[in-house]
């Protein structure tokens, strides 16, 4: 009788946990994800290397009152990931439930551990949610509009889901490779100020690689700084520095979902795997609050439409018809303090002195900003030739949608 009671109470406790996770998942999952939830996602095979599959089994077993099974699975989990604190907490609950009834997740940790237990509970929820609501194989993050040929991979982070997704550049089409649990800033995302303990939202890239030997144990198996603040951030007065992708201390498998000073933290084994795909100065790291997923068709049409605009801009520049050229620019245009009028007037003057202009755009990349500010960063190698001047440069433009049309809001050397 008392045994039965115990089983019942732990069920109640863990159902609470799972119910919270499910509700959150149901509320936030994009529509098309739900629609596709029944289909076996091809992607699933990749992430089965992490602890989530076993963790999900543990909670399934608890939910169906197979506590002995749950304990066996948790033992396996601990064996595979000895420093996985969440697994130890679940083990504590399962053991304690055998000696007394439990009313809440991790309550045996004692009153002093409340915050840590809450952290681990959050970790359980986001891990299970990430595992159960995987992106379908034929959907891609909206931000990866166009990768350059030499950008072999792209990283997209979803801070709400505490998840990092790795995509491979398959002849221009992003293909899902793997996803990993991550930790973001203690106070969440949308970094704006130095020391605000937030993770920036935006389009960045890996700028260097700091080997483990040069770092303290706190950063784990290595670190990859990203270029926060980027041009856009600076223009909007955001500051701070030292935002890295890095690992965990040697005695810690993973940190809670919100714990860093703004860095994106991965388990060491995940960082090690990921690091093989990171190209310094090349690999985009796009950090989003909540990833927007597009079907490949929608993604393709958005991409084609913007590419067409870039091509028209190129042709209009070659035509030396300044009015045609000017229609691609926003009235909010600003480049190094030069506004729309100044920019256009200068082009008009320059063009008047030329008998011909040839513009080449090679190696175009296009990444959409994931934040509230909707813009696309377009980068390419510009090969400019004219009757009196030629030069090659790497150019960066910021395109926005204005009145339904794509316009350039900023332009300059990359």
């Amino acid at each position, binding site marked *: 009788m008392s045994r039965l009671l115990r089983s019942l109470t732990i069920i109640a406790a863990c159902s609470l946990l799972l119910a919270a996770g499910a509700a959150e998942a149901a509320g936030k999952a994009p529509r098309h994800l739900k629609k596709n939830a029944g289909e076996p996602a091809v992607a699933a095979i990749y992430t089965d290397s992490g602890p989530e599959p076993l963790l999900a089994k543990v909670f399934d077993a608890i939910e169906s009152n197979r506590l002995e099974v749950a304990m066996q699975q948790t033992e396996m989990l601990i064996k595979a990931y000895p420093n996985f*604190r969440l697994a130890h907490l679940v083990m504590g609950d399962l053991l304690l439930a055998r000696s007394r009834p439990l009313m809440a997740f991790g309550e*045996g940790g004692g009153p002093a551990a409340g915050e840590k237990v809450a952290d681990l509970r959050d970790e359980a929820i986001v891990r299970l949610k990430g595992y159960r609501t995987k992106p379908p194989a034929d959907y891609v993050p909206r931000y990866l509009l166009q990768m350059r040929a030499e950008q072999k991979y792209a990283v997209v982070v979803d801070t709400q889901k505490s998840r990092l997704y790795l995509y491979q550049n398959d002849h221009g089409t992003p293909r899902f490779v793997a996803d990993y649990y991550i930790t973001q800033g203690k106070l969440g995302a949308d970094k704006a100020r130095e020391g605000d303990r937030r993770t920036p939202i935006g389009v960045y890239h890996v700028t260097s690689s700091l080997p483990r030997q040069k770092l303290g144990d706190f950063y784990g198996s290595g670190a990859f700084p990203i270029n926060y603040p980027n041009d856009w951030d600076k223009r909007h007065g955001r500051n701070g520095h030292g935002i890295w992708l890095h690992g965990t201390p040697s005695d810690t498998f993973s940190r809670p979902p919100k714990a860093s000073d703004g860095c994106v933290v991965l388990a060491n084994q995940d960082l090690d795997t990921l690091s093989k795909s990171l190209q310094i100065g090349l690999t985009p790291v796009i950090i989003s609050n909540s990833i927007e997923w597009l079907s490949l068709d929608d993604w393709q049409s958005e991409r084609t439409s913007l590419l067409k605009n870039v091509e028209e801009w190129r042709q209009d520049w070659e035509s030396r018809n300044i009015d045609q050229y000017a229609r691609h620019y926003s009235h909010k245009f600003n480049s190094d303090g030069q506004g729309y009028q100044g920019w256009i007037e200068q082009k008009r003057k320059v063009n008047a002195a030329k008998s011909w202009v040839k513009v080449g755009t090679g190696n175009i990349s296009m990444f959409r900003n994931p934040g509230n500010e909707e813009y696309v960063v377009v980068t390419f190698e510009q090969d400019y030739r004219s009757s009196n001047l030629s030069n090659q440069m790497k150019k960066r433009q910021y395109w926005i949608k204005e009145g339904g049309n794509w316009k350039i809001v900023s332009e300059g050397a990359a």
Partner: protein
Amino acid sequence: MTKIRLTASRLLTSAVSVALLALAPVVHADALQDISKQIKQGQYPQALEQVDKYLAGKPKDAQGRFLKGIVLTEMNKPNEAIAVFSKLTEDYPELPEPYNNLAVIYAQQKQYDKAKQALEMAIRTHPSYATAHENLGDIYARLASQAYDRALQIDSSNSSAQNKLALIRDLMSTAGRPGKITKPITDARPVEPVKLAEAPKSAPATAVAVPVAAAPVAAAPAPVVAPAKPAEAPRPAPAKAAGDANAEITNALDLWVAAWSRKDVKAYLAAYARDFKTPAGESRSAWDAERQKRISKPGAIQVSYENLRISVDGDKATVKFRQHYKSASLKTSSNKVLLMGKRDGKWQILQERIGS
């Protein structure tokens, strides 16, 4: 650090004496009683001396060895105590008390996994053994506390989880447990000391002393195990042969259920005939291996039956009953049919199926 809780001390005076009288000549009983008293009064060196002296004459005596283990534990000689209790578990695997006390010492040494295993053995032999359950609960609490420490990076060594484990002071403390395992299953074996603990149940203590005094050697089967088997008694006495067969079959069934319940795979498999027809037509060795795997899973198993119907046809019988099965992960009740046959004078299972 771990305080040993004295439990069953009241039994030391009453039940101990009765049972000891039953198991040995009065002189020995007195000696053991004296040793118990010395332990109670904390005169451990004297008690050790006495018990060694006692064991010199009766080196195999379970009661004496058990007391020696207690003394060594109290004298803080855990390794020697472990040796004594371990040997007892080997010689008397059906006694839960040595397992329990081994667990207590392991727990003192913070070897909680070993403690847990020992307690699980104690419970396996006696599923309703309250002290072992209680102690196991404490062990789980400590393992939980360790897990929480790892999870939360806190030191909870002074938290409330530090319950005390109960060391069993005598082999009699389980006297009150249901006589499940001491039923017909054991009557084939020589009488062992614990079984005598059942004596007070069937007769007043004073009455027990009498037959024992008449036959001081504890070799004769104790009266406890002799009572008519329940399955046999209410039967409306059919032909004698059939009655014998029924009794034999019931006995075989009891042995099978008991072996299963105490997870004794060897004894369990021995209930099946060599020509047992495996349910899915797999090879016998494959089936054996599968059963072994199932039964050896962690956690206690309890199997019982009711509504037994036997129909004998020569040296074959169809045995129907309702089977109750309970393990850590599964609880079922189902109708079962066994086709049994006599092989080398023993009733064995030829076929086993669920249904009616």
